[in-house]
């Protein structure tokens, strides 16, 4: 485990206020999801999950076909599709377009994909102003942080934190009431919307048969981003494509329920190309950036490619007892929680943070709530195996490897196993039937020390089961 990962986990666990904030917020989202997916509220929930999984599997298994169909249809409606292999190509495309159109101000609606490629930082580095307009994203942009949660980016900030950030960055009078803080943001951002030259959004879905981009949100900032400026650019991962507009009837029922416990989010925008003849408003230019940035690396493995089915609802984060303790910023990349734990190693390589797939009790809560039925625990186990293979190649972690070889040998030799058990039992401190609080210093190492740092140890029984059985 990297020292950084270890330290971030420790610091988050030690921060009582943060612990309460994470646990309360995720608990509320989790309870709302449970309520609206219950049998009496959504009787065909499991059927919808099965269909969503089948559709995603089909779309990913035939990804090239649907990308080309999507591209043809976007172009038929007067839009343009731009394929980008990485972060640099995305920012180069936006910068070049901005230069050609004389654009200076960009408004952005929430997009994990643009977070992934640090788009704001790249654009601002070249002198453009790029403003996040989702309230949570705006707060963390002003705080110079990364999103804490896929759907609730500022989950870790209290109203007082937000008040401090607004006072410092916007030079406004200090307010601590959430309604008033929201109004301040609305005022500042409304002006940006009306002046902006370009609007950049993400995409929740790309619809192959319509050439449409679908955006789901609650605030109206994505609608403004895609309606007010003359140019709309949607930045989407290539995995976002689904076959038909009609499939939205399945995905939309699952997405908002899983994310926030709503039946539908307040605004679902289905956008196909620039403003058409006769339409009064809407952008004059429409671009869809299709981003690879490592996604194609996930395709060859038939099992692990299911990681690309994700619709970014965040339900697995809210259900995860690990996320609920260590929060979003302990994770090594922008994607946190169980889904982050399976996609980060595949995008960045398993050695980026080899401990990440192991930071799970494998409780399975993530797989149980995933609306597209990604078997996250299964992928975690596969990644654990990949990590060990990579360590073996690099000659790392040899002692652990040896320990498991010994384990396998002992477990296939019952007499040795019994003898080893008896030896361990005779060495264990006598607890007089009581649980053991500490062991002598020479024994307090490795796993023993780690266990005892948190919990007591069971006393060793006088006889093993097999010994008792023989004497029965």
């Amino acid at each position, binding site marked *: 485990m990297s020292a950084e990962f270890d330290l971030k986990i420790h610091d988050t666990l030690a921060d009582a206020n943060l612990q309460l904030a994470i646990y309360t917020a995720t608990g509320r989202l989790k309870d709302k999801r449970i309520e609206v997916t219950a049998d009496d509220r959504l009787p065909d929930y499991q059927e919808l999950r099965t269909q969503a999984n089948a559709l995603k599997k089909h779309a990913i298994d035939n990804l*090239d076909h649907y990308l080309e169909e999507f591209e043809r249809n976007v172009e038929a409606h007067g839009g343009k599709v731009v394929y980008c292999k990485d972060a640099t190509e995305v920012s180069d495309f936006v910068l070049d377009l901005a230069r050609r159109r004389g654009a200076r101000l960009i408004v952005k609606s929430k997009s994990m994909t643009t977070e992934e490629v640090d788009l704001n930082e790249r654009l601002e580095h070249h002198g453009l102003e790029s403003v996040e307009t989702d309230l949570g994203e705006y707060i963390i942009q002003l705080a110079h942080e990364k999103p804490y949660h896929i759907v609730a980016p500022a989950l870790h900030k209290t109203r007082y934190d937000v008040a401090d950030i607004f006072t410092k960055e916007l030079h406004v009078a200090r307010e601590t009431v959430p309604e008033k803080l*929201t109004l301040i943001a609305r005022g500042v951002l409304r002006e940006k919307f009306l002046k902006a030259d370009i609007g950049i959004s993400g995409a929740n879905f790309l619809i192959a048969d319509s050439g449409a981009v679908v955006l789901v949100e609650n*605030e109206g900032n994505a609608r403004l981003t895609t309606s007010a400026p003359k140019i709309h650019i949607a930045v989407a991962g290539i995995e976002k494509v689904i076959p038909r507009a009609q499939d939205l009837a399945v995905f939309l029922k699952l997405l908002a329920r899983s994310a926030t416990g709503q039946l539908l989010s307040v605004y679902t925008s289905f956008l196909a190309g620039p403003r058409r003849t006769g339409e009064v408003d809407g952008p004059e230019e429409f671009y869809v950036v299709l981003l690879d940035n490592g996604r194609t690396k996930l395709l060859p493995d038939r099992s692990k490619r299911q990681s690309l089915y994700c619709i970014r609802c965040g339900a697995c984060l809210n259900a995860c007892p690990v996320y609920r303790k260590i929060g979003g910023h302990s994770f090594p990349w922008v994607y946190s929680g169980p889904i982050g734990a399976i996609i980060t190693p595949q995008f960045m390589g398993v050695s980026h943070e080899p401990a990440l797939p192991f930071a799970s009790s494998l409780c399975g809560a993530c797989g149980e709530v995933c609306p597209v039925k990604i078997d996250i625990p299964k992928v975690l186990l596969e990644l654990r195996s990949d990590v060990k293979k990579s360590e073996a190649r690099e000659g790392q972690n040899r002692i652990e490897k040896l320990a498991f070889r010994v384990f396998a040998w002992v477990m296939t030799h019952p007499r040795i196993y019994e003898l080893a058990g008896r030896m361990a039992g005779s060495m264990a401190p006598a607890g007089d039937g009581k649980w053991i609080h500490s062991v002598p210093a020479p024994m307090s190492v490795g796993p023993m020390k780690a266990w005892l740092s948190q919990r007591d140890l069971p006393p060793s029984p006088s006889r093993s089961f097999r010994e008792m059985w023989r004497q029965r």
Partner: protein
Amino acid sequence: MSRDNILHKVRTALGRSAGQAVADVPPVRLRLPEVAMEDRIALMRSRVEALAGKTARVPTMDAAREFVAAAIAGKTAVASNAPYLEECGIAGLPGVRSGIREVAELTEVCARVDIGITSADYALSDTGTLVMIASPAESRLVSLLPPAHLAVVPRERILTGLDELFTLLPDPAAQTSSMVLITGPSRTADIEQILVRGVHGPGQVTVVIVG
């Protein structure tokens, strides 16, 4: 260029060749429940109200005009170019700007007035949703920039839900560049999970059902 490179990588990883057809497309899943109109209306109203939207039901187009006239009294409003609003006489009410066909003027007016009046193309009763399809008759900004949105919907446009919408419109892109589903007032819970309405879009939504 990256296009061909990415598509090539995708095909290689999936073991597919260029132009290869797809097999076993999962069938479309749309379920159309039979729900009587009165039940649709009742559900539509309860869903909108559960989201802190307001609803009203009026018997005739004249009554719709009177309801809107009372609702906008003392305030400024902009109406979309929907023929239905014209037929109801709503577009011609005093204090209502309508007939705008130029984007700069529309933006300026919508950013200034108190209320935006539209006639939704459809409504979805099981979620309390308004369906707004951009066209010469309905712009995007009227239901977006003003702090309040008032939609006048004849009852026959009330569908059961998403499945019926996508049965009627298998491909919305065939007729519009923008279809927006509106389910309640604009909201956020980004600060301490406390619900605040009217962030960027209208904080008030009123649905007037005619008939």
